């Protein structure tokens, strides 16, 4: 079974680019994706997940706990040449 096969029923679907007004939603989606990428790279998402998991509000002490939790993992993460 191929999960992403759009031609399972044998029909070729119309391209979503053919619809009018596709540009703004597409740009907005790209911007959101870029933001998500940057938030993951810069550990903002990890902090949000930590807040959600621990039920804490964002504060200097919560951030300190987050760092304590992540320090070991972060220190062992190699940066490539």
């Amino acid at each position: 079974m191929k999960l992403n096969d759009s031609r399972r029923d044998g029909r070729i679907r119309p391209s979503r680019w053919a619809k009018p007004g596709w540009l703004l939603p597409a740009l907005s989606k790209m911007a959101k994706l870029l933001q998500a990428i940057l938030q993951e790279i810069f550990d903002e998402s990890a902090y949000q997940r930590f807040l959600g998991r621990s039920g804490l509000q964002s504060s200097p002490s919560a951030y300190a706990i987050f760092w304590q939790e992540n320090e070991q993992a972060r220190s062992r993460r190699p940066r490539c040449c």
Partner: protein
Amino acid sequence: MPQIPLRMPKSFRVILWIAVSLLGALSLAIVALHRGEQINALWLVAAAVCTYAVGYRFYSSFISAKVLALDPLRATPAERLENGRDFVPTNKWVVFGHHFAAIAGPGPLVGPVLAAQFGYLPGTLWIIAGAVLGGCVQDFVILLFSVRRDGKSLTEMAKSEIGRVGGVVAYVAVLAIIVILLGATALIVVNALKSSPWGTFTIAMTMPIAVLMGVYLRRIRPGKVLETSLLGFVLVLAAIFGGQWVSQTPSWAAIFTLTAPTLAVLIIIYGFAASSLPVWLLLAPRDYLSTFVKLGTISVLAIGIVALRPSLNMPPLTRFADGTGPVFAGTILPFVFITIACGAISGFHALISSGTTPKLIRHEPEARFVGYGGMMAESMVAIMAMIAACVLQPGVYFAVNSPAGIVGQTPETAAAAISSWGFPVTAAQMATLAHAVGEQTLFNRTGGAPAFAVGMAQIFSNTLGGQALMALWYHFAIMFEALFILTIIDAGTRVGRFMLQDALGHIWKPLGRTSWYPSILFTSAVVVAAWGNFLWQGVKDPLGGINSLWPLFGICNQLLATVALCVATTIIVKLGRVRYIFVTLVPLGWLVAVTFTASWHKVLDLNPRIGFLSHARQLASAGANPRLIFNDRLDAAVTGVLVMMVAMILIESSLECMRVISGSKSAATKEAPFVMTKLALEEQA
């Protein structure tokens, strides 16, 4: 509502891929066969992009389907072991960005610049072919095999799939590569900053800026990393402008004009401090700042090359194909293949592919996009570095990259020596260029970083701001590379320290405690002393240091790739897919051939510029400093030991494969048991 994927009619797709293939073939033919006149850099870009596109569409698809049999129904560890911390199912684009940010370092910028001494052709062909057939494949298969083993590291996979020797060799290779990498890259920073008050001031300022960022992030705006990084970036830009003022103010310029040995000592002290201080205070903010600058600069450089379409001044092949190159000695085969590692194939990537990334992959098929695609992006960075080096006039390139031990101590002797090789350059021309970029001199700035910075400044100053901004572009590029490298020194020293603590903990338990301060200080000092020794050796080397250290680093990196491909080949055999073994066996065979040959040359070649031992003999007969003789012998011993250890893993891996193929051992791999995915089905619904 489920999204309908974009599907083009089949006939259109066929025509499109034929067009891409033809454009790629045409571009490669122009890059390879054009002689005489300059060619436009866009031909290199087109050759690379089209080859990568075809490789991704067809070769990685073949590997996915036939060799790895990616299974969209199999739950990944990110789904099964989700804990919101290490294991998090993540969007494939986000994982791609995360993975790329982790694998992109100074390697793909420095290696191609050094290899440009052969001309643009050998390095470019190796970057493209090496990536599509080797580097991308290695990153992809190691990532997938780690995903199927709950995110296990390369060392753990080597131990469980090959045997105990495999695990030990992988461990030693990783530690050795970290130590040599840190020594070699620190030397690049030293060579870029020596006698440069502007550059030294800018980089010195990044340290208080990082501490300020750390405090701001911890106390004032917790968790707002992007905002803090932007603030840090603005401060770094201010430091670049401040550096110009410092360089023009004699009293301040005198303070920041440092010799190579002084800079080396300062970097060694910095490495020790960074490894011992809390992560949040210095390491993490610098890492964020470096990543921010890295992603921005690489994007700007890519846009700049495509928009400005510079011409290459370097010929496709230079006379130094014969092994007499001033940047580093040795013939194209095998030295171009160890000089360019990260842009083509890099063992270090296997550590990332079996580190954080496999714990984020949401669906198994996405390993193809992240692993194979991430390495393609890294390879493109190497192509850009090659372009930046080759837009320079060859005379300028060799003047910047040749050590004083080869071309002489004075500008006049250096210019005369380089001109006599057929690459005209004058002392006055170099003085004008040095003045334009705000330096006292550009002669003997070995290591690749200054040449890359001059190339990048030249590309941008042709349009944006003209010659007036050339000095700012140059120092921006120097800052960018030095920031990169100092971040690696921070992180690498700490990773090395943890590895050492893990090992020493087996001998005496307290040494393994990562929070015990005496252990932290002791192991940090050992790691810093190890790479500091290589740095000091490079600084004192009459041939400039890069001639010895960069090949040594390349050999280590490629030996680690050999270990990774051994692991991958063994697993493919155990999966019962021997007929597809060529996918990893071909790059493995190639790497063994070039790396072992290069190692042989570096240890035993009779030419003192190439062989460590013959250089030691030459120094001994000239009555040189015993320390220099010891350094050469140490380099020879390190190379020899690593080669022997990798030979052991090759033998053990081959025996394991033979046992499985002959049926004397059952083909059991250590994959995690199959669990049906819920995520994919939920998304499909």
